[in-house]
């Protein structure tokens, strides 16, 4: 389907802190189009002297929410764009964006499942759009999320994930904390590895539809682990985010 990709000027209508260095920006778009969960928008900043910087951010919100999108942004040390979005941007500001973009790393309820979602750090963002879409559509497709974070205070959407899990049919959420664990934690406490994957995927059958998102090395470890467990490569979709490791 031909559709020109045009820049538009969005307005920041809300800013919500998620964790110590992660915020969600709600943007009202004059030319909003329904997106597919997993897609992203490009954000472009322009300085008065003509200098521009551009980055891509996954859409966090479900396509069922019309007229606006949520972008969840992690502030990176030395991040030229992320530090502007964190330090300078306020409600009422404008932001130049274009999208929605992407056709490979997308999931719609119509594709069915069982669904396996594997997130490393801020890689949870596009997978959250998939979970929110699944909930908005009232779907009950068997779904398991395995989410790796450094500590439990780094978990983005922590409360909402618990609410979704409790309210939904067929959704299970597994956290693993790689650095420190909360008192009394009895769940996974290490980086993702093949034995962990084997336990998590076991009830989903041999060919779950799989989406892995996070830093490059995390994605490769998870994808290689699933390949070793016999999940066909054609069932696995990946999106690499860049070097910060959970």
């Amino acid at each position: 389907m031909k559709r020109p990709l045009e820049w538009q000027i969005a307005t920041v209508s809300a800013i919500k802190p998620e964790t110590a260095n992660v915020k969600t920006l709600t943007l009202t778009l004059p030319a909003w189009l329904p997106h597919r969960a997993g897609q992203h928008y490009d954000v472009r900043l322009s300085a008065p002297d003509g200098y521009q910087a551009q980055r891509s951010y996954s859409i966090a919100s479900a396509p069922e929410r019309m007229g606006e999108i949520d972008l969840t942004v992690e502030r990176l040390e030395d991040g030229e764009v992320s530090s502007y979005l964190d330090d300078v941007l306020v409600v009422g500001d404008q932001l130049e964006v274009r999208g929605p973009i992407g056709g490979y790393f997308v999931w719609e309820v119509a594709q069915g499942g069982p669904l396996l979602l594997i997130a490393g750090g801020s890689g949870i963002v596009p997978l959250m759009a998939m979970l929110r879409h699944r909930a908005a559509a009232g779907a009950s497709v068997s779904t398991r999320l395995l989410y790796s974070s450094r500590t439990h205070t780094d978990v983005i959407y922590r409360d909402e994930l618990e609410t979704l899990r409790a309210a939904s049919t067929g959704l299970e959420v597994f956290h693993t904390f790689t650095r420190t664990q909360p008192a009394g934690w009895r769940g996974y406490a290490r980086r993702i590895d093949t034995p962990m994957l084997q336990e998590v995927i076991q009830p989903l059958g041999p060919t779950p539809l799989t989406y892995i998102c996070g830093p490059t090395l995390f994605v490769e470890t998870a994808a290689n682990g699933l390949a070793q467990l016999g999940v066909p490569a054609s069932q696995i979709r990946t999106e690499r985010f860049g070097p910060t490791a959970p």
Partner: protein
Amino acid sequence: MDDKSDLNRALMLDGNAVAGLLQEVFGIELTASPTKCAHCGAVGALGTLLAFTHAPGIVLRCSACEQVVMRIVETADAIYLEARGAAYLRLERHTS
């Protein structure tokens, strides 16, 4: 030296990173398109290509053999795209 210490590998992204650029140029979404590597014959969605974006241009490499499939350079006036490393791209017809 193993993969964990290769910063160039850690900076690597995938074909999703050029989705916006390709859509800007061609007007259609291309990252779901099966792409055949001219070097080793592997076929995978363009989104699965390994993308090296920290460079004077973007270099997309086959995820199986790591040879160059496509290169993209953005200059002030133009976008150059070279795809000798791609034997083909398969674009589905849409009847809608």
